[in-house]
């Protein structure tokens, strides 16, 4: 599925939630089930420091695609990471670099991706896109 197809799928899933509690319970569940990042990558090289929560991100190039694994010490942040990984992982580097992640806004979680929130997610998305650019450039050579 393309990045936008997955985004549509998520928007659709979230449209069934009646209130904030159902939505957050789902995100918390996602956080609990996110495939843990390989422990060896939970180090200083992979950390993205937010003031509030910490995020670890590992990118594994697979041909012209990138596979992402990630983790956070806060479960809600981790749930949102699960959504971002679902959208961007195993996609083409070029598509990752150019992705417009509109789904976050559509499912009413935009505030979690605001720089003032300082949970590491904004930097994580930036980092994912940078990987996309880097792999794209490398493969173009």
């Amino acid at each position, binding site marked *: 599925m393309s990045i936008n197809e997955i985004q549509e799928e998520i928007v659709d899933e979230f449209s069934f939630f009646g209130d904030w509690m159902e939505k*957050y319970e789902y995100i*918390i569940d996602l956080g609990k089930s996110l495939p843990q990042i390989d422990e060896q990558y939970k180090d200083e090289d992979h950390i993205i420091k937010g*003031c509030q*929560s910490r995020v670890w991100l590992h990118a594994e190039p697979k041909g012209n695609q990138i596979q992402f694994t990630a983790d956070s010490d806060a479960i809600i*942040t981790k749930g949102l990471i699960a959504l971002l990984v679902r959208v961007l992982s195993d996609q083409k580097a070029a598509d990752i670099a150019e992705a417009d992640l509109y789904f976050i806004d559509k499912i009413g979680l935009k505030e979690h991706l605001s720089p003032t929130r300082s949970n590491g997610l904004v930097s994580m998305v930036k980092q994912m896109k940078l990987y996309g650019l880097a792999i794209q450039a490398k493969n173009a050579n």
Partner: protein
Amino acid sequence: MSTITADTTSLDVQAIRSDFPILEREMRNKPMVFLDSAASSQKPDSVVKAMDYYYQQQNANVHRGVYQLSQEATDAYEKGRHLVQGFINAASEKEVLFVRGTTEGINLVASSYGRKFLQEGDEVIISAMEHHSNIVPWQLICEQTGAKLRVIPVTDEGELIMEEYEQMLNERTKIVAVVHVSNTLGTINPVERIIELAHAKDIPVLLDGAQAIPHLKIDVQALDVDFYTFSGHKMFGPTGIGILYGKEKWLNAMPPYQGGGEMIETVSFEKTTFNELPHKFEAGTPDIAGAVGLGAAVEYMEQIGHEAIQKHEHDLLVYGTEALSKIPGIRLIGTAEDKASVISFLLDGAHPYDVGTILDQMGIAVRTGHHCTQPLMDRYGIPGTVRASFAVYNTKEDIDRLVEGVRRAAKMLA
């Protein structure tokens, strides 16, 4: 202004709430519960109106005009200083400096006192529960002068280990700088004793009063403290203004902090002579409206009365501590004997950010994170806390909503 009953220790909290229109707002479609006054308090009508009036009717630059309006602006500005002097019982207005806030107050002392009195091998004592504002300025001046930072440790409950402090004091100690009330733990430190012990060795003491001034009656002469600094915005006043109180003998001995207008007497390219206190430390056009607003905040607090404020907040602290303690899996961080109305806590297995996010969904504003006290978080081996802080306008219903929210968060995050 709210009406106060004859009994000086009870207050009409609904009347007080009506002085703060912002408290009627909704967040996430629910009536807002504001429990983050330790970060910045809300402002009563009277403060906003005083500043409004200043800008609409009195605005001109201060201390320089020959015309009537400038005189009025100067009077309004200096009235702010006069009110603060009375509020903290300073011996003279010369000892009451306007600064931007606590952070600038500490930076001023660290820089000016430090440049003059600190040398290689000297020591500066702070504590393990300091706000970054009372750590970094001292680190900077220590780096410049070769002085060393010594740190008073804290107990598991969040109290200073006074025996260690006593042993730390020696002939190389040049200043002691500690927090009066901890913003993270709520601990009220035994500042009388801290000062007494330091003075016995002729060492001056600076107190970071940022969290004490909204709650406690401060009498700088009774404390015999050498420097006391606080922020207007945490005591119902505006942001951008604060106070550094300093004993005249120290302020006279210290070099100016910044150079510019207002702080000089004569300037030539050969030599500049500095203005008298307090203006020597107030370079440039000051925050005139801020001083007016701070004065109004002082009047507001004095009208309610410290006794009534303290009693109300203490009731909330006791009520909140008891109710929160009953929640399974909660851990209170900071259980000192003597506390201001701040409750920091953690839920078993839950990150503070997650708890704060769920409370926010319920319209409850708390602070999460390290509260600019990272060394203290390291001391307890935790990433941060959830902190609820109460002011005079908070109610038991606010606490009931908090408790309900924390229970809900505990269930969702379990």
